[in-house]
């Protein structure tokens, strides 16, 4: 969807049109779900957070004042996930639980096994790094945007993501130089 069409859709959402929200859900539902799923490692939690996100957008939409909608949307999604962590789990417990929640299922297809493996690997990264990686991947944010969002020097963000991605590949048993 081009930015002009997206802006029209956002304006319609701001005026409270249910159809526009449906279109927005169709457009971003899967990406946001993937973001939440990769962070939480749990389908139910990801679905709950997805629902919470779109309900929250009803009241938040008015505060969107241009710029990158993806950036804005995934910032809200990231904050929602942090709230979820704060309210329901201690971060370390979640990481442990995540590893336990995903037992290997030999009957599944190879792609599912790899997905589970990736999920476990993500669970072993610290939550901050895995959120950064997911934010970059799903929200399509540049390092500069991520650094601005986190209010830190770009070198720090670059270093964290590079280190995280490298570790992720190691955990996935992909040869790293």
């Amino acid at each position, binding site marked *: 969807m081009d930015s002009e069409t997206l802006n029209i859709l956002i304006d319609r959402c701001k005026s409270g049109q249910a159809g526009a929200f449906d279109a927005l859900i169709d457009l971003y539902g899967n990406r946001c779900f993937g973001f939440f799923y990769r962070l939480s490692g749990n389908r139910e939690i990801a679905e709950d957070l997805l*629902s919470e996100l779109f309900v929250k957008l009803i009241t938040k939409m008015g505060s969107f004042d241009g710029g990158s909608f993806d950036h804005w949307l995934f910032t809200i999604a990231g904050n929602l996930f942090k709230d979820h962590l704060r309210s329901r789990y201690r971060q370390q417990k979640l990481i442990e639980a995540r590893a336990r929640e995903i037992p290997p299922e030999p009957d599944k297809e190879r792609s599912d096994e790899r997905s589970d493996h*990736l999920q476990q690997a993500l669970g072993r990264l610290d939550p901050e790094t895995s959120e950064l*990686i997911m934010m970059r991947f799903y929200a399509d944010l540049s390092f500069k945007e991520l650094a601005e969002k986190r209010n830190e020097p770009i070198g720090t963000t670059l270093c964290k993501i590079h280190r995280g991605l490298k570790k992720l590949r190691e955990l996935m048993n992909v040869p790293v130089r």
Partner: protein
Amino acid sequence: MKETSEQLNTLLEQFADKQTAGQMSEDIRQADQLLTSIPAPTVSLQTLRSIKSQVHGHLAAKLRLRTRAWLASAAGIALIVGGTFFVRTHQPVIPTESVQIALASAIWDDDSLGPLQYQVESIAGQVESLNGQSEVWFEEDAGLGAEIDDLQTIALTTDFWKG
């Protein structure tokens, strides 16, 4: 929007030498490729439908709330306008001084006031006589004070209350 590989190289070269920057860029590219090759599961259509219906419900509630607030403020404004109009069109008529004097004398000269005045005086007399009686009662029961003093002395000098 993510950087292109050239932009990423340029960015990394600001922090590391050309060779290290190239390696870092390659690491990031390969990790991105890895993530792309393993997509996350998709959300079910049923969940999407349920989210849409939740959103519709919230939008309807918001609309109801907004309509209610609008109606309440419209009613408030109507009330203020109506009240102002009423007050302006119904100014109390203040009689002139001579009419006021005439009215006052007419009230006080009214014959029906006599019995009322008599009743008021009679009630006042009754109140006064009751006042006098209470004083007499207090004087008659002057021994009561001595009895209270005795009881206090007993209470202070004995230990009966300790059980």
